[in-house]
């Protein structure tokens, strides 16, 4: 039985990939900034990020992909040591 491969040019499907909805980082009003001195590397922000835009870096600290982070603020809210601050994208 042949599968979607030969038909997907016609039938709209999506595959798991980075940024399938475009560069959603441009939607952001506020930007999460991680204070690495306060961060305890607990990974809670990585697990809670609703858009999967935070990864664990090689140094063990969380790294945010700002191309896709929409600035929802969930990470800042769940951080137990308040190491993430939301800063306005546009400074007045």
């Amino acid at each position: 039985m042949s599968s979607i491969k030969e038909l997907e040019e016609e039938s709209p499907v999506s595959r798991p990939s980075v940024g399938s909805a475009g560069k959603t980082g441009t939607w952001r009003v506020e930007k999460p900034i991680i204070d690495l001195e306060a961060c305890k590397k607990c990974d809670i922000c990585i697990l809670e990020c609703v858009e999967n835009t935070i990864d664990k870096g090689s140094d063990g600290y969380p790294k945010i992909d700002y191309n896709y982070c929409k600035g929802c603020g969930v990470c800042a809210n769940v951080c137990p040591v308040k190491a993430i601050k939301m800063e306005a994208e546009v400074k007045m």
Partner: protein
Amino acid sequence: MRECMPCKGDKNGGRGEDVKNTAMVGNHAVAYAVMQAKPEVLAVYPITPQTTMLEKLAEYVSKGMLNAKMIKVESEHSAMASIYGASLAGARVFTATSSQGLLYMTEVIYWAGGQRVPIVAGIATRAIGSPWSIWDDHQDFVTERDAIWIQMMAENVQDAYDMTIQAFRISEDKRVIMPVMMGFDGFVLTHTMERLSLLENEDVDKFLPKKDFKLIDFEEPIGIGPIVTQDNYIKYRYKAMQAMERAKGVIEEIAKEYSNTSGREQYGLVEFYKCEDADYVILAMGAWAGDARLAVDELRKNGVKTGLAKLRVLRPFPKEKLAELKDRKAVLVLDREYSYGSGGVLATELKSALYGANLPIYSLIGGIGGKELGPSEIINAMNMVVQGKMDREVWFV
């Protein structure tokens, strides 16, 4: 209930093969065609005048004559949603509905059309409320004309049986991959017993091999009906437009093949009856094409050279085929539905297809909500056309 099983019949005019001749009501003929097509998943919600088809299908499943999963659903919306999923997973699927049920199904009908899922749906055409009516017209059917579905319409019980089997082939053809709805008039066909010939099961198997593709793969997950960017959305819609155009050729080709299988001539997109030398042509779709056929014969006896163009397929609309009508003296279009604020749907479409031709097109609106309109009314209307007394649009109220 009377059992409508086929019996061994006569020899088929010189072809030397056995055919099954029997009599069935339209709903049972379509159910029989569906059984022979061997769908693996059915989900049908009852609604007059489709219900006896659902009952017959349930009987086939319970007797083991059709090895299919029949999903009991709580609505037409769910019926379409569940066979949509089953079709994606590789099953051959069928549903049927009518009128309000079709409207309720419409949200998922558009999803299935846009997703390009092979599905066959039988539509027992019926008027839409309000006021409430269970009787026949084509308003429900034409309401679905922009949903990226192929729409076929039967003239009689034989036609409904033949079209149902062809619908599965068209829907699953890889040049098309699109859902198909097969309309047939509520009560006029669904509940009327007519003679018909059935194909042998082996012939159907040969004509309609097992569906050999699926649109999801459990080894490699994908999202169905995903959100897309503006650039991608229009790309898929453009491809759907192209597929609809390709479907015209595929429908003709499959009709020809079915003619060979069945020994009954199939006409693909349009049947032209006595049109070769006709000065005047009637355009009609559905059961009353039969009345129009009688009207043509009668008018010809009185010296009016008339023909019938029977529209078998509403979508894709056979513009190229209908261009054949452009040098006639006039066309009378029968519409059993209406686009309020605009005109009869077929009349409007024909005018669009023949844009630039200097041809008077007259529109007769009738049969709405089951109001009787037979050959004599069609003859009268055509005589008025010939005498120049007909208004461009007339409602037979």
